[in-house]
């Protein structure tokens, strides 16, 4: 049962032919060629496959490709046309990642947080990335970078 799915990925319209048992994570990686959503636990526990679906983080391992029909997907590649977002730059400057496997998911989770809560507390940041596992950093440099970005955003907007 092949189905045509029309989905916007990082601003580009795609018409994809998928099977009902195709999962969005696999479709993004193998058909669209976007490799930042990572294949981790494949059961929603690790957060490394996180993408923005209509602006909100979801586990792309727990979304069927057909469910994305008519919707908009943004991965870390699509956050900013010009390069890195301010948040990403803080992650770079503060050396917030080591192996980087969790990075796309955590950046997207933190991006969603700052959209909805520009002045998060440390606890808010911990909660926002609570579903994203990092096995390298111990999380502190990640949380510091998100708080630094929030603080800088506050200065920029007065």
């Amino acid at each position, binding site marked *: 049962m092949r189905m045509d799915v029309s989905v916007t990925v990082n601003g580009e319209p795609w018409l994809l032919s998928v099977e009902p048992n195709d999962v969005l994570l696999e479709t993004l990686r193998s058909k669209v060629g976007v490799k930042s959503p990572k294949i981790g636990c*494949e059961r929603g*526990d690790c957060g490394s496959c996180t993408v923005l679906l209509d602006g909100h983080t979801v586990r792309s391992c727990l979304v069927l490709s057909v469910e994305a029909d008519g919707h908009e997907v943004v991965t870390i590649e699509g956050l900013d046309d010009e390069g890195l977002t301010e948040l990403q730059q803080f992650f770079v400057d503060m050396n917030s990642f080591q192996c980087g496997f969790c990075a796309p998911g955590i950046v997207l989770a933190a991006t969603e947080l700052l959209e909805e809560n520009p002045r998060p507390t440390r606890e808010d940041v911990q909660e926002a990335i609570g579903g994203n596992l990092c096995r390298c950093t111990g999380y502190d440099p990640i949380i510091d970078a998100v708080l630094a970005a929030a603080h800088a955003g506050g200065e920029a907007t007065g």
Partner: protein
Amino acid sequence: MTIAQVFDYERPETLDEALEILIGHAGDVRVLAGGTDLIAWLRDEAVAPDLVVDIKRIEGLGEIVDEGDALSMGSLVTFTHLLNSEPVAARLPLISEMAATVASTGIRNRATMVGNICSAVPSCDAGPVLLVYGAVVHTVGVAGTRRIPIDEWFLGPRMTALGRGEIVTKVLVPVPPGGHGAAFVRLSRYEGEDLAQASVAILAPPDHRFRVAFGAVADTPVRARRVEALLEGKALDPVLVARAMALVSEEISPITDIRASKEYRLRMSEVMLQRGLKAAVERLEGNGPSYGTNLM
């Protein structure tokens, strides 16, 4: 590893269309809402439907409606939606407190409360909370609509009173008249994303006709009716609370699994009852910890 098994997919736009599909299909059908359980189960081959019916395009199922003496929550209402709802926070704060403990933002954005009780795993977070509020599950099927009290909903692990060809349209949650305090206490191996090892929901109305329900410590979420009968109408004191804690072993039947031993679950359920009763009564009296405070 992707999903190995093959199935068809339908995406009805109306309830009538959905019911026609469900009734007209002879094989195993699964209804898809948020999918955070179903897609994991499809991958694990814990379920083997030949048809998946996605109800997310059906209008009118995604709303929280204030009906005065109750709030109705449509079957597509996500945990994030519940968490952000002011009427829910103001009138049914236990639901907000519970929603905040469910998994993580990325799951809460997708997972629905009705999906949670339809999956009906013994550790489902919504179960104990809906039990103490006395929620009613509204369904629609060929034979018409049904209103199933939540006390009759959970039949066993992953088993509910939902009939073949039926769809849940909403859950109606009565707002206790006269105000209430409440507490949802949840134990997990770590903060962040983990299924509950044990949970307890407590409703403390002004007349102290307490309602108490446990999760993750029996085949289904369970009301603790002996505890409720013991506490009914009484002021809590340490002796009474100790007697209530001693009844917990008669109310629940925890098992040992990868997340906890049965002995640990039993002992912690007693402690969680103690802490939850204290917090619920303090909240009733207006001097308790704010909703969302981790009591463990």
